[in-house]
C-alpha cells in the first residue's frame, strides 16, 4: 500500500461521533460539569472544537469567548463571531488589551525588542521568526523582524535575554485568555475545552498554563488534515477553512511554520504520521515532495522538540507520590 496523503484520511462522521461520545462521558463521569467553554480565534481548530461541542452537548451547553486585543488580526474577531453566531451558542467578547496593559505586556515587549532594534517604538509592527525552516538539523536561531511605520523591515538575531523576555511577555496573551476561559467555566459550572491539534500537542507548541491548559482537548489526537476533514463535515464556514494557520500573537502576521514548525503543516502532517507509523523515509519523502534526507532531518527535529517541550506537558512534580490522588482520569483506589 503506497503511502500518500490519503493514508491519513479519517471517516469524519465516525470520528465526530467518537469525539462527541467522549465529550459527554468526560463531562458527566470525570469532570462533573454541565457544558464547555471554548476560546474562539476564528481559526479551524477552535471552530471545529466548538462545532463538536455543540454536536455533542447541544448549543445551550457551549459558551464561546472572543478575546481580541490591540494587535489581533481583524479577521480574528470577524471570523470568531461568525462561527459563534452560526452555531447559535451564547458568547461574550472580552477585549484583553487593558488586562495586557495592566500586566505591562506592551511596555515589556517594546523595551525588550528595543535592546536589539534601537528606535523600536510601540507603533512599529514585529514578529519572531526562526531559522529552523531552512535547516532543521541545525540549531533553531530566533530573530526579530521589526517593521517601522514607513514599511522598512529589519531582521536581527535575538540574544538569549531578549528572546526569553519577548516570549515571556507574549505568553501573557495565552495565559490571560485561559484565565478568562476558566472564569466563565467556573461561573457556568462548565469545563474548558483546549483546541490544540496533534502537531501542536505532540511538538509542545503551546504556552504552559496558557493555551496548554484545559480540561479536555478534543482534537489533540488529530493531524491537521484530519481537523480540516472534520471542519468540512461539520459545516465550518469556508473562509475559516481556507485561512492559513497563524499564531495571531504578533503584530505582523506570523505563520506557524515561520515560528515553530520546521516545515509547512501539510508536510509536517505527513512526516509526523510517517514517523509515528514506521513508514520508510523514502516513501514519506515521495508523499511530501521532499528529499529523503530532509525527512530524516525533520524526524530528528520532531524528536528534539518532543524532548525540549516535555516539561510543558508534565503535571507538578512531587518528591513523593501521593497515591490517594490518581491522575490520568483513573478513579482513586478507595
Amino acid at each position, binding site marked *: 500500500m503506497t503511502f500518500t496523503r490519503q493514508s491519513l484520511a479519517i471517516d469524519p462522521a465516525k470520528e465526530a461521533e467518537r469525539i462527541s461520545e467522549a465529550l459527554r462521558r468526560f463531562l458527566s463521569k470525570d469532570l462533573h460539569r454541565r457544558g464547555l467553554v471554548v476560546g474562539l480565534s476564528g481559526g479551524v481548530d477552535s471552530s471545529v472544537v466548538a462545532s463538536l461541542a455543540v454536536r455533542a452537548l447541544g448549543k445551550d451547553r457551549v459558551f464561546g469567548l472572543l478575546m481580541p486585543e490591540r494587535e489581533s488580526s481583524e479577521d480574528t474577531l470577524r471570523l470568531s463571531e461568525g462561527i459563534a453566531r452560526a452555531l447559535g451558542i451564547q458568547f461574550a467578547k472580552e477585549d484583553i488589551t487593558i488586562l495586557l496593559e495592566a500586566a505591562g505586556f506592551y511596555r515589556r515587549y517594546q523595551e525588550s525588542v528595543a535592546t536589539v532594534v534601537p528606535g523600536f517604538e510601540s507603533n512599529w509592527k514585529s514578529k519572531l521568526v526562526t531559522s529552523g525552516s531552512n*535547516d532543521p*538539523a*541545525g*540549531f*533553531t*536561531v*530566533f530573530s526579530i523582524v521589526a517593521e517601522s511605520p514607513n514599511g522598512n523591515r529589519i531582521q536581527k*538575531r*535575538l*540574544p*538569549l*535575554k531578549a*528572546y*526569553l523576555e519577548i516570549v515571556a511577555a507574549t505568553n501573557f496573551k495565552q495565559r490571560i485568555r485561559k484565565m478568562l476561559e476558566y472564569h466563565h467555566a467556573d461561573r457556568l459550572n462548565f469545563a474548558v475545552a483546549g483546541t490544540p491539534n496533534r502537531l501542536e500537542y505532540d511538538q509542545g507548541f503551546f504556552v504552559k498554563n496558557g493555551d496548554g491548559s484545559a480540561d479536555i482537548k478534543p482534537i489533540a489526537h488529530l493531524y491537521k488534515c484530519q481537523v480540516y476533514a472534520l471542519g468540512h463535515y461539520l459545516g465550518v464556514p469556508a473562509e475559516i477553512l481556507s485561512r492559513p494557520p497563524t499564531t495571531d500573537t504578533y503584530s505582523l502576521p506570523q505563520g506557524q511554520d515561520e515560528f515553530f514548525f520546521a516545515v509547512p503543516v501539510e508536510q509536517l502532517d505527513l512526516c509526523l504520521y510517517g514517523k509515528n507509523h514506521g513508514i520508510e523515509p523514502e516513501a514519506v519523502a515521495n508523499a511530501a515532495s521532499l528529499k529523503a534526507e530532509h525527512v530524516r532531518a525533520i524526524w530528528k527535529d520532531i524528536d*528534539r522538540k518532543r*524532548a*525540549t517541550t516535555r516539561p510543558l506537558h508534565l503535571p507538578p512534580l512531587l518528591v513523593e507520590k501521593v497515591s490517594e490522588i490518581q491522575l490520568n482520569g483513573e478513579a482513586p483506589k478507595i
Partner: protein
Amino acid sequence: MTEAKEKIRQFVISNFLFGQDNGLTANASFLEQGIIDSTGVLELVAFVESQFGIKVEDAELIPDNFDSIDAVAAYLGRKRPTHK
C-alpha cells in the same frame, strides 16, 4: 585539555548539568545527548562571546561549531588563531 576547552567544559557542567559531570566527554554531541536545546545554545553563545571576547556571526551558529566541547574549542581556535 587546553585552557579554553576546560573553561567550556566547566561552563557546560555548571550551567546545564548543575555541577554533575555525568561522564561528559569532549566529543559528546550536545544535541544528541539532549544536554543543550535551542535556548541552551544561546546561553553557550553568550558565554563564549563574553568569555573569549568574540562575536558569533549568524552563519557561524551551527552544530559544526557548537555541538560539542571539541567543536566549540576548534571554532574558537579558528576565530582567535593567536590564542590557545
